[in-house]
């Protein structure tokens, strides 16, 4: 019993330990770090990444990769700014349409990947430039969103006492994580995703719907990327075609740090949740310490991703021998 527990959940526990250690170290190093307000801000600040990372987790679990998420998010933000501000759409309709576009775009990518057998990284790399370019077509520069619905939504949320409010963005994030866990571990689609990532040939021989699962996974990821864009407009009240540059790496990093194996078939949505919190904590530390160059954030997230991949390799090698 003990051994099974240790071998299966070891990466997840390592991630949890790193998060606790990081937070404790930051708490010891900086005054006022260990407070509910800091944690709440972290959730608010990283909610969009968290949602995008859940979608990315499914894609990686299926043995694929999606490099277009940052660009899809950027497109969503300018699309919202344009149709709400320029065309006068009502905000909820615009949000639904935006998520719909994300799902459609993801479906298209999944179809091209599956039907034409073109490597996922190439299709989604082209998708990344396509979506980023379209974002610039919609608006070459940042646009402010002025809408009563946005103002109203900004004030709503779940009160946590002491004047603390869990706003809509982080609330959606938590719901998406919970839903992702249910879909991954409790539905037929989720099991198909794990099977597809574990061994595509076996999955096909077992009669699982490989094509539909793959298209579904990319559609889910595209939808999550668009939803991440919606959340980012909630937090910043603006659309920006340059937003989300490098987001794909953060999302991949969050999934991998959380124990999802890049070759697919193994991982946890909850691990990705912890991974996002680790990346968020590092960013918060950099924000707290004003003297550090923000360029360090890029280097740190790259290095952390590398470190966790190496850790996984080590664990895999040890469990084999």
């Amino acid at each position, binding site marked *: 019993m003990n051994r099974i527990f240790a071998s299966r959940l070891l990466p997840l526990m390592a991630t949890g330990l790193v998060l606790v250690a990081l937070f404790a170290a930051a708490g010891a190093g900086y005054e006022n770090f260990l407070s509910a307000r800091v944690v709440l801000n972290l959730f608010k600040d990283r909610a969009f990444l968290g949602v995008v990372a859940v979608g990315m987790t499914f894609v990686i679990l299926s043995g694929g990769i999606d490099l277009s998420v940052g660009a899809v998010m950027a497109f969503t933000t300018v699309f919202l700014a344009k149709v709400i501000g320029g065309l006068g759409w009502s905000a909820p309709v615009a949000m639904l349409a935006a998520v719909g576009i994300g799902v459609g775009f993801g479906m298209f990518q999944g179809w091209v990947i599956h039907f034409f*057998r*073109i490597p996922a990284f190439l299709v989604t790399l082209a998708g990344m430039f396509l979506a980023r*370019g*379209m974002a*610039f077509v919609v608006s070459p520069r940042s646009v402010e969103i002025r809408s009563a619905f946005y103002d109203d939504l900004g004030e709503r949320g779940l009160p946590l006492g002491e004047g603390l409010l869990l706003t809509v963005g982080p609330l959606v994030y938590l719901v998406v994580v919970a839903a992702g866990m249910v879909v991954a571990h409790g539905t037929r689609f989720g099991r198909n995703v794990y099977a597809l990532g574990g061994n595509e040939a076996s999955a096909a021989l077992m009669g699982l719907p490989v094509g539909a699962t793959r298209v579904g996974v990319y559609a889910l990821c595209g939808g999550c990327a668009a939803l991440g864009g919606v959340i980012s407009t909630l937090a910043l009240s603006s659309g920006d075609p340059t937003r989300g540059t490098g987001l794909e790496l953060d999302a991949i990093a969050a999934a991998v740090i959380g124990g999802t194996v890049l070759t697919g078939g193994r991982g946890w949505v909850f691990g990705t949740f912890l991974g996002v919190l680790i990346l968020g904590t590092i960013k918060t530390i950099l924000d707290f310490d004003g003297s550090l160059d923000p360029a360090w954030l890029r*280097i740190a997230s790259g290095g952390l*991703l590398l470190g966790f*991949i190496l850790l996984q390799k080590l664990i895999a090698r040890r469990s084999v021998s």
Partner: protein
Amino acid sequence: MKVFRSTLVWPLVALVVLLVFNAVASPGFFHVEWKDGRLFGTVVDIFNQGARVPMLLALGMTLVIATGGVDLSVGSIMAVSGAVAAMQVNAGAPMVQAVGAGLGLATLLGLVNGVLIARVGLQPIIATLVMMVAGRGLAMLLTGSQMVPFANRSLTWLANGSVGGLPVPVVLVLGLAVVTGWVLRRTAAGLFIEATGDNEKASRLAGIQTGGVRLAVYGFSGFCAGLSGVLEAANISAADPARIGDTRELDAIFAVVAGGTALTGGRFSLAGSVVGALLLQTLTLTLYNQNVAPAVAPVPKAVVILAVCLLHSPRLRARFGKRTQPVAA
């Protein structure tokens, strides 16, 4: 028709179509004149700008893709080497030392990619994606996220000077392409690269040091990206850590794929990649002439690259044609 079997035909046809379109759409497109001891004209510009970035990056990328990998970090490595060269000349170093430092660091970063892929066993996309983000961070860190202007005649000459009437980058890059092609095809190195991409395990069992081959191609890709970054900085006498090389990895992949090197590895055509780079640069210029904003330009490029990949797709080939696998040049 044997001629249509060559992978070079289709990019050449596409290039000719684009050139004819331009000749009709913008008069004076083919006008070339001799002034101050060098050639001037739109076609010369295509060669010059095409050589400076896409062709150079495609040289390294061709070999990487031939081994079955990919290098997403070339744009960021360009930024690093451009920044290093600019900072070196500002610190009073001679041009050769500055360029050497930039190229050295770029090659080192390429080798780091190679070690992560060949020795540690990471997927090429992931290792080079890490380098893409961390490398851009490194360039920003070195320069404090500021543009680094410099005034150094000999460094600027590298991008804007001329040799025998031709722009220096054209001579430099075509020379590098010819030497690379000659070395790879006259020695067994090219064969080793293709064998590694075709079937790594079989190649290893046959006695090829596949790890060394992969290490070398990523190092070479880093070197090419480094040279491109130096030329890009030299061209405007300033290194911009945020802009140099941004989104250029797609340009390189475009040139390679359009030139007939399959993404699955195992075959490569350097001549095809050179033509592919010229095709890309002509397309870029055409878009510019038709008043398409530079930030939007990736859209048609992405569409073309997807279309080319669809043409390469076995499924589509099986349905619409009976052409056999293309023969590598």
